[in-house]
Every structure is written in structure tokens, then in C-alpha cells.
């Protein structure tokens, strides 16, 4: 099992950040690499068990299932059902924690997954950097430009 972990400080109050990232169907609004997204089977985006199907700007399609969502903890957990990446048993959690000092946000994104032997490092770097960090960067840029 491999783990990717990325965290950063977002210089905005946590509730403001959470309002954006809690939308399970909203990756296209803030990550910078998602073209469009829909929720399957007419379910709601905050209905536990719903599936989001989204297309990356590079054309890849990913389907992910919402496993847990908490407005109290400001955290969201989901698994990958289908993706171009060579990962299995992929479960990720995105969570926000308020930092009282300065009223900013500590954001964490972590994924645990299995993959073919020898590819752990490459995939960990890809997910932690090209996916999570790059999404955080896009989010910070968007918030700073408001």
C-alpha cells in the first residue's frame, strides 16, 4: 500500500475554503485540471454513496464514489472506481482544519492505494504533486484573486 500526502496553508478562513471544496461535483470549479463533472443516477452531490464522473482536460475519465462527507470535520472521503491511473483500492480524504493563529486554513489531502510493484514512488509523486498540490495551488490562486 502506498500513500500520497499533501498539505498546505490557505490564507483564507476555513469555512470559506470548505464552501468551495465540499461540492463533490465541483472539481471543475477550482482544481484547474477538470473539464466537466456530473453526478450519476440523479443523486445529489452531498448524498453519501453518489458517484461523480468527470473528464480531465487531457481527456481522461475518472469515476469516484463519495464514502464520507462531514461539514462538522470539514472532510470528504472518496474512492476511485475507474481511472486512467494504475491504482487499485484507492481511498482519499480531503480535509480542512482552521488555524486560529491568523484565521487561515490548514488543508490536507491524502490517498492510500495499491499499484503495480515498482510504481509506488512515481504514482505517489504524481498524485501528491500533479493532482493534490496542483489543485491546492489553483485554489489558492483563485481565492487570492477574489
Amino acid at each position: 500500500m502506498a500513500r500520497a500526502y499533501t498539505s498546505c496553508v490557505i490564507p483564507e478562513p476555513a469555512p470559506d475554503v470548505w464552501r468551495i471544496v465540499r461540492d463533490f461535483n465541483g472539481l471543475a470549479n477550482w482544481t484547474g485540471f477538470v473539464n466537466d463533472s456530473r453526478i450519476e443516477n440523479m443523486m445529489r452531490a452531498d448524498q453519501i454513496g453518489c458517484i461523480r464522473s468527470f473528464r480531465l482536460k487531457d481527456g481522461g475519465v475518472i469515476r469516484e464514489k463519495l464514502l464520507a462527507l462531514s461539514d462538522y470535520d470539514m472532510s470528504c472521503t472518496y474512492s476511485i472506481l475507474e481511472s486512467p491511473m494504475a491504482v487499485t483500492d484507492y481511498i482519499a480524504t480531503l480535509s480542512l482544519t482552521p488555524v486560529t493563529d491568523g484565521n487561515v486554513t490548514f488543508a490536507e489531502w491524502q490517498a492510500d492505494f495499491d499499484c503495480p510493484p515498482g510504481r509506488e514512488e512515481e504514482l505517489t509523486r504524481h498524485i501528491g504533486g500533479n493532482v493534490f498540490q496542483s489543485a491546492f495551488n489553483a485554489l489558492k490562486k483563485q481565492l487570492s484573486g477574489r
Partner: protein
Amino acid sequence: MVRVLASTILDAPIDQVWAILRDFNAHDRWHPAIAQSRIEDGPADMIGAVRRFRLQDGSELREQLLSLSDQTHEYRYCLLASPIPLMRYVARVRLRPVTDGGGTFWEWSSEFTPPAGRGPELTALVRDGIYLAGFEAIRARLRGDAPVARSSSPSVMPTSPLATRSGNSRNRAIVIDRHGGPEVMHLQEVDLPPPGPGHVQIRHTAIGVNFIDVYTRSGYFPLLDPPGTPGMEGAGVIEALGDGVTGITIGDRVAYACPPVGAYAERRNMSPDLMVHLGDDISDQTAAASLLKGVSASFLLYDIGRVQAGQTVLIHAAAGGIGQILVQWAMALGARVIATTSTAKVGLVESLGADLVIDYTAQDFAPTVLAATQGQGADVVFDSAGRTTFAGSLEATATRGHLVSFGQASGPVGSHDIDRLASKSITLSRPNYAHYTDTPDKLAPHVSRFFGTLRSGEVKLAAPNLYPLARAADAHRDLETRRTTGALVLTV
């Protein structure tokens, strides 16, 4: 329960921060409020380790490590003893890496129960004085600033008014330096050490005044070798625990009615074995006013008198603290109650529901009892008056009846010829409170039974007569001269 949480971002890698914070005994090397710390036994990263530390103002605290994880970079700990009433204080220190930039997220949080009305003040104290001050100290240390010299550092914790340099705390107590009248009782400042092994420290809010305290003071009972502090009943809050105490914790509301003496004090250390936890529906003043009397009434009625429905029960001093409980409780058990009291209190005792109230100052009670029972007498007689009533009580007791002599408010019972008991096959009991209440197993059924009668309304208690602790002598005077009805309570 209040929750305090503070978090910050440090510009240093998590391993560097964790290396400082992980040591449960090192806070005196980085936190400005801590003067000195030591682990009581074993290594500092042993779960269960207790750190005993002194603040800059000299007050001493003890905290215990509950969990420590090098994997998640967090630990939790709780407060065992503190002069600051952070009751049930459990805190957590948690670090997380900030991968973007290589910093560290540090969250310090806790939950505790403050005394009524002190939540905002104590929350601010913990947040500003402990957590934010700690953040700044670590930040300065990571910047490479010289550590703040302890001797000159400003104390960020307020000076505790109760703390002294010795680790003992100041305490005010009624002290008697010789046996005698109420005048031998004086309020004094005394040293109170932290509780020893197996003991707890209770801060009294209400202290019960009982006739046994008069006997303690006068020397009639050898309960106190002067100088010492009388009192065997109190209610309040647990503020500190000694080693090895289980089943009770800081912040618990408790009451007790047991030896050893020492209750006439703001705070005291004692064994918690016979302490009773108080529910929200029993106030501290009610507990202090009634626990000893209620427990006594319970074993007098159930274990000794074994009062049954339909029996006739004679109760002396029925307007007194225990008398009022006995009258109501015996009525609830279905007994026919005959009560004696003095003229001014007849109305009060009648209002309790007694079937017959005898003004013993106006008439001889024994013939009146016999007349009211077709010459039979009372099946059970509860006599706490002693000298003035004992002979009459024997006369008023039925054949095969039971005379329970449990006090001597009017003076010692004196010598009597027990051969006379045979004329009516009278059973005579002379119970000692301790023998019915000196273990948790003996005490528990009486406590639950008594609190049950309060909750059901079978026994109603008048508001106690309140005296400040400093006026304990006045309370004794009023009790001894029968100036009061109902219970007397010292307030702190």
C-alpha cells in the same frame, strides 16, 4: 464543558518541532509559565507517566500522559491536581506536516469543566497563558533566540491566591486548641499539603453542623485531640487527587458524612472511600445539611428500629434536623407517629404530618403517649435527648418495644439498671454511627434510600440555617440552645 483550541503554523519541519514537544518532562525548558518539572516515576514517554511541575508563581500541578504517538505526532494528557479549577481537563497536542513549504501545523486543544460562572476567565487563561504563550516560546526557540531566563520571565499565569512556595496551599479552617465551649473555635490560616497517596482534596462549598460536632468540641467524644478541626460532614468539589486514587476525579461533586473530623475548613484532604457522588438534583447545601442525618435516619428506621406499617413510633426532638426527617420518613413507612417538641415548634412538627405532637414543656410526655395508645406505649422510641427523656422513654415504650437511644442533647443518659428492661422485655439500642456506615457497602444503601425519599418528596427539607464558616461558634451556640429548627450549614 468548555473547549479551548488554538493552532498555528511553525516555519520548521515537523521532526524538529516534535523533538522538542514530545518530551513530556521538557516543558520547563521551553514554556515560560513552567518553573520546574519532574517525572514522578519512570521515563517521560511512558504512557501513564505523571509530571509534577511548578509554575512561576510557585503553585504546583500534576499532569498525566494518556497517549503518545510518534506516528501521528500527537499526545494527550490530563490534569490530576491543580490550584486552578480546570476540572476534568484533558488536552491534546497534535502536529501535522505542511508539505507545501516544509512547515508544521500545531494544534493544542482541551476540554474541561469550569466552576459556574468562571468559564470565560479560565478559557482565556488556558488559551492565552498556556497555548498561545507556548506557541510564541517555541517560535522564538526555533528562530534561535536565547531562551528566556526563567528568573526574569514574566509569569504569564496569574498568581494563584492559594499557592505558596512550599507546594502547600493556604487554607482557612476552624481550629480548636482545647476542648470547651463554642468560644474555643477560631478561624485560622493553616497549611494544606497536596493530598497524599489514596487521598483527595475537596473544596467545600457547604459544611454540615451536627450535634456530634458539639461533642467533638467539648471532648465528650474522643474524636479530636486539640489542636484540630471539627466537622464530619461536607459537600463540594474534588480539586486534586493523590496517587492511586480511582473512581473519583477532579471536578466531581461529592458529599460525605464520616470521620475523621476536619470538615470545618475551606478545603481538606481525606480518603474518598465514603464520599458520595451528587446528582444534579441534590444541591451542595442540601447534601451538607442532610447526608449525616438522612443516613442516620435510614439505619435507625431500617436496621435498628425496623419500623413497620401500623406500628406506633415516638420521636423526640422532632423539630431538629434528624427529627424532622425521622417524622416524615416514619409516616411514609406507614407508622403512627407521636412526636415531642417545645411549645414554639409544635406548629412546625404538626405541619410535618405527625399524628400527635406533644409539647413536652407543657405536659409529661410519657403518660400522654400511654394515654394515646390505650396504655400500650410506643413500639419504637427514638430518643436523642438523653438525660431529660430517657426515663420517660422507658415508661412510654411498649411491651417488647424497642428504645433506640442515639443522642444526649440534654446531657448524658447516665446509669440505669438494665434489670428494669425485663419488666416489659424492652430492647435497648445504643447505636454508633460509624458501625453502620464505615464501609462503602454499608453506607451505599442508606444513601440511595435517603436520596430516594428526597426525590420522591416523602421527605422534604426546610432550607438550612446558613452561617459563614467564620461564624461556626454562633452555629454551635444556636444548636446547643435549641434556637434553631432544621439543619445548620456553614458556607464557604
